[in-house]
């Protein structure tokens, strides 16, 4: 059972990495429009939090959504088409890199306003509670977002109404180029949970099993109607903030320390050490993922552009 889970987690984390690295190369080749924020190094957060969730559970993401989307089950092909702005994209090409998602698998189209998805997640939780569903909402955001007013208001609302929301702060030590040392006067963002009378917990965000364990505690609590939790996942983004960022603001020692704790490597080592699978099996997984991503690229490049005649479509809802 655990073996299956670990391999599935590995598969997902590898898929995320493969997908995002491929995007990066597509940008370098100059054939992909816009920009991207990679979650490189934070794959354990996405997968640990979302592994095993129901399709009817919701997930709300940020400007850095690819990992969360894939872990929640959004099709890589749909996402890739979206990256190219094609009509077959998950948002019909209208959204772009910062808005991917698929409501049919519970992935709320992502939000590019830092902190903007937090009060919305509270609202989703509110409706779930009113509907007496035992589904939950997992709301991701960064260390930077925890300084937004939307964070404060959203968490307070979820706490006083005891809503089934898991607030997940992926603390990767930086908001864009700015270190948390300059934006927070506290060590642990999890501490902010106290302001709302909500449990808060610090978790090793690069250890997918630690994340998974914390997630299960919070999800169980939420499903039982006991209210929200704030999890702070300590992690690190290996890539730059966005495609043009060389991370000149980080020092080598810090980078080296964190790079040595690459979450995919950590999981791989565990799998190998516990003999859950051998190198070959993991290589096969990766190859399969490459194939998925490459097929998605090929499809997306050929896929058709949206028609300008439809440009006004969905400014307002077109009917169910």
């Amino acid at each position, binding site marked *: 059972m655990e073996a299956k889970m670990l391999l599935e987690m590995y598969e997902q984390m590898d898929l995320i990495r493969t997908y995002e690295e491929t995007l990066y190369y597509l940008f370098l080749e100059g054939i992909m429009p816009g920009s991207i924020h990679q979650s490189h190094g934070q794959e354990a957060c996405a997968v640990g939090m979302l592994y095993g969730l129901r399709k009817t559970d919701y997930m709300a993401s940020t400007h850095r959504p690819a990992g969360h989307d894939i872990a929640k089950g959004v099709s890589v092909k749909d996402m890739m088409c979206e990256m190219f702005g094609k009509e077959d*994209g998950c948002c019909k090409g209208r959204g772009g890199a910062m808005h991917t998602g698929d409501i049919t698998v519970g992935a709320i189209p992502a939000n590019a306003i830092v902190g903007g998805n937090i009060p919305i*997640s509270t*609202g989703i939780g*509110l409706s779930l509670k*009113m509907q007496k569903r035992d589904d939950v909402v997992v709301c991701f955001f960064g260390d930077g977002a925890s300084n937004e007013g939307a964070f404060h208001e*959203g968490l307070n*609302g979820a706490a006083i109404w005891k809503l089934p929301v898991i607030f997940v702060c992926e603390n990767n030590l930086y908001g864009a180029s700015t270190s948390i040392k300059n934006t927070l006067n506290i060590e642990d963002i999890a501490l902010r949970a106290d302001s709302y009378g909500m449990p808060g917990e610090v978790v090793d965000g690069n250890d997918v099993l630690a994340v998974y364990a914390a997630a299960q505690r919070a999800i169980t609590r939420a499903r039982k109607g006991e209210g929200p939790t704030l999890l702070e996942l300590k992690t690190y983004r290996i890539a730059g903030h966005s495609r043009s960022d060389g991370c000149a603001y980080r020092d080598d020692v810090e980078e080296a320390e964190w790079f040595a704790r690459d979450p995919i490597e950590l999981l791989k080592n565990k799998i190998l050490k516990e003999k859950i699978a051998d190198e070959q099996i993991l290589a096969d997984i990766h190859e399969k993922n490459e194939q998925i991503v490459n097929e998605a690229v090929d499809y997306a490049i050929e896929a058709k552009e949206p028609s300008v005649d439809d440009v006004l479509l969905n400014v*307002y809802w077109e009917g169910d």
Partner: protein
Amino acid sequence: MAQLTMVQALNKAIADEMERDSSVFCLGEDISDKDGGFGGAFAVTRGLYEKFGEERVLNTPISEILISGAAIGAAMVGSRPIADLQYGDFIFCMMDQLCNQAAKMCYMSGGQVKVPMVLRAPVGATQRGAQHAQSLEGFFTRVPGLKVICPATPYDAVGLLKTAIRDDNPVIVFEHKKLYGGKRVEAGAIAPVGEVPDKEYTIDFGKAEIKREGTDITIVANLLMMYRAMEAASHLEKEGISCEVIDPRTLVPFDFDTVIKSVKKTGRLMIVHEDTYSNGWGAEISAYVAEHAIYYLDAPIVRVTTYDTPIPFSPVLEDYVIPSTERIIESVRQLMDS
């Protein structure tokens, strides 16, 4: 047929819809009258708690990002929230949620999600100073994805609010404090009482109402200004000036057809609103007509609006900056002479 004030009409529309559809609920500051609460800053939501319980008449913290975000999130997954602002001016505290989230969600997601929410926001100056006085329509008539409505009569309040609640898009409802009626009587309030049929009805958006037919000039006016325009029209009739007064009722969508048809008849257009002069909602109406119907005009398009100042507290100054019936009359006279 019941004779209702605006407050009663709005309350009725909400209660009817909550009765009809269990996914409708209200949220906002002090909206519940549980245990002696206000039942809304202007008592619009009074009595709803007793009928529908605490969960569906939800008092929130003073937390406008929360109110709007909660409404949006709930709307995205099956609820139909009616959010309440105590004074419209506080809408700026939730501006990101309205303009970047609610308005864009359906489009950005390629039509995956809808946001069927209503936000009710009282506007108008009532001697409370600049942060409790603004008319805000023009901020939102420029946000694709939002609808904006301004019911001015009890009949319209019921019909339009019901349509708003059933609409699958975010709708902002601007209500005027001086039209509410009810316990708080503001200086200069009108508090119209109007007939509301017992039989259920809704009013489609985008249908202006010709409140008074006329031949010399078309006056488009909303909310309190519609009443002042009507009063002005009565006076002017005695001087032999025949005004056609149109209440657009909804600003987005806007019934340009009715306005242009009227302008074709009268050759003159005046827009009267409590919104600012510069880029008030009337700017769009004027510009639209100047673009699509200029050849029917015999005279400049005139806007009679609040002057471009923060609203002053002093009653003397407040009365001066907001268009009065006299200012409308004078402006019409001038326009007829031009």
